[in-house]
């Protein structure tokens, strides 16, 4: 029953990091781009300036971390939602592959995206 080779601490670390980073930063993005700018509280930044900002190495790292870790947060949470909420624990192996696999695919796409801005 005790299983030393369990990878849960690894997935949980990504889950925790993803939860923290998305809880802190995504509301800021939503508030700025979704509310403040459309309501005219701030001037619309010009496109070139934004691209310039996004190309900065630190911005790329930030965007990559935000995308990837949020996906792992989702993956871990969704895995347990399927286990407990939908009572699908017997499909454990498929669920694990689907959830973390999706996050890994999303991470690769995110990496390509941030490198190609």
């Amino acid at each position, binding site marked *: *029953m*005790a*299983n*030393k080779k*369990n990878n*849960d*601490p*690894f*997935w*949980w*670390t990504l889950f*925790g990091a993803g939860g923290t980073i998305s809880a802190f930063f995504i509301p800021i993005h939503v508030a700025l781009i979704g509310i403040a700018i459309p309501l005219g509280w701030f001037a619309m930044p010009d496109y070139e300036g934004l691209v310039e900002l996004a190309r900065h190495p630190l911005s790329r790292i930030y965007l990559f971390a935000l995308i990837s870790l949020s996906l792992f947060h989702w993956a871990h949470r969704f895995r*347990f939602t399927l*286990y*407990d909420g939908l*009572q699908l*624990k017997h499909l454990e192996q498929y669920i694990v592959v689907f959830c973390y696999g999706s996050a890994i695919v999303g991470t690769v796409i995110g990496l390509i995206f941030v490198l190609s801005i």
Partner: protein
Amino acid sequence: METTITLEVQRYLPEKDTEPYFQEYKVPLRKKWVVLDALNYIKDNIDGTLSYRWSCRMGVCGSCGMMVNDKPVLTCATFLEECLPGPIRVAPLSYFDVIRDLVVNTDGFMDKLKRVKPWLITDQVKPVPEGEYRQTPEQKAEYDQYSMCINCMLCYAACPVAGLEPEFVGPAAIALAQRYNYDSRDEGRKQRNEELLGEGGIYSCTLVGECSEVCPKAVDPAGAIQRYKVSGAAEWWKSVVVPWGDT
């Protein structure tokens, strides 16, 4: 005339019932009476066949836990007046097998407690002439909260994960593991990790948090589990980065 309140008590006598059912009893509604007093009134005056556990009547022994109006509580600490106007539904603790009426089978819980090795583990036992294992008040305060558990199992009846996954070691047992892990005299963390970082251990918890809501002793098992997840993850990474290290 004395006012009364109705209790709907879950009954199950395995020798004659195929399924549990609810039976109604009217008991006097007295100030300062707790649900356990009402059950004792039923047993003494109405129906001597009703079975349930209790002992201390003061929130210490942990044996009188039941579902009262679907919430896990100590019946000796739940006043009838809190449950007005009634009827009050009294049922055995959720997710446990029922032996008879309100009495549940605690064997699984007892095994889980043993699995976390809830005793002081030291690499070398000090010979008696060398004296006690001393501890400062600050060191004691580190684990004090986790030592308040009375094994009432309310947290297991509140935890949907413990209900769905019989393998999950569960809130009180993990809090108990932390009670020893945080004890300055203890060196057993590694042994407990073997039991708790794997399948059915701390990472099965999805932080529902109900265990801490219902705990009558403010043990905060959910907090104990979260702290364990953080330190467990740190130890896991250390063992990957420095595999030759001693974690």
